[in-house]
């Protein structure tokens, strides 16, 4: 396995913001994303009800270091103040670096 290093950007945020957020992420250079439905608790309280206004999504984006930085900074500027959101980045190995 000759892996290549990329970044995995994970975002947990409000389900209500899904469409807007995905548009932004793609515009900023992500080639893809994976979403799972989630619930949780953080600074803005418990978010675990069965309706959109109180449920979370968890988005993963595999991308290069620069794109990860661009997206993370953008989200910090445009979303952090107003939305329940956390974001973290980790190092991963991928097989087809050209994809990301």
């Amino acid at each position, binding site marked *: 396995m000759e892996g290549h290093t990329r970044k995995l950007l994970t975002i947990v945020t409000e389900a209500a913001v899904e469409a807007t957020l995905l548009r932004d992420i793609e515009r900023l250079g992500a080639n893809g994303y994976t979403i799972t439905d989630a619930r949780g608790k953080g600074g803005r309280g418990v978010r675990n*009800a*069965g309706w959109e206004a*109180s449920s979370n999504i968890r988005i993963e984006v595999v991308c290069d270091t620069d794109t990860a930085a661009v997206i993370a900074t953008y989200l910090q500027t445009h979303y952090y103040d107003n939305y329940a959101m956390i974001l973290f980045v980790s190092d991963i190995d991928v097989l087809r670096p050209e994809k990301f």
Partner: protein
Amino acid sequence: MNVIDPIILFFLLGLVAGLLRSELRLPAAIYEFVSILLLLAIGLKGGVELAKQPFADLLPDMLAVVAMGFFLTLLAFPVLRFVGRFKRADAASIAAHYGSVSVGTYAVAVAYFGSRQITFEEHMPLLLVMLEIPAILVGIVLARGVSRQTRWSEVAHEVFLGKGIVLLVGGLLIGWAAGSDGLASIKPLFFDLFKGILALFLLEMGLLTATQMGGLRRYGLFLVVFGVGMPLCSSLVGIGLGLALGLSVGGTAMLATLAASASYIAVPAAMRISVPEANPTLSLGASLGVTFPFNVLVGIPIYYALAVWAHTFVGG
């Protein structure tokens, strides 16, 4: 005739279970299923009746209701901003919730009127749709001004193609096109099960209301007072409009209920996107934690009594 409708008991069951922190919860998929069925059923029922009268006759009512949506939002805003001392965005967002309408409250009123054989104008679902939207636009403008920044095409998409409107309008159109006979084959699902489905919906609403009451405690008395006082005022506006439009007693009471109800689905979603700096805990705390239970438990009978009174003394 029972003092209390069983569907209300389902709401209370959910509320008590939620307050006692029971682990009871409807799965998200089921909550959506139940909502979809209610929205379609309300739309279908309205559509069937629409087919019976020329569309032009309905235009005055529709326009009047849109005007009421604008008016109620503009009425609530200064109270919230200057009496409640909320931030501009929060005041605008809460006002939009109260200028709009709650389909769940409408459904409970339908059940309440139905079990008491109170008739009302059957184009109410159309007015429901009309009343849902103006408050959202006013809310955004109140929060931002008519700024260039607001991506209005996005807002329009969010508002007009949101789940609720699509299902209500879709149901209306299908009911209108198919007519009462055409719908006979789907009646067992959409009409016969209506109140059972509504009972499940209210069970979950009770659980949700319980979660919102926590948020309320933090933001204090004003929201509670507003959450009871505003619907009472709005209902008077609704009754006035009902009289002016020459609606029946039932129709007047229903319009009062629509006016008094506060949105907790369409408006929160739109505000979250368009006025993100507004704190949703405030608006949902008020609309779901105070106004929804108030309307469902005591408001609807009050509005009906007011409508009867108004028709006797004013309209008579």
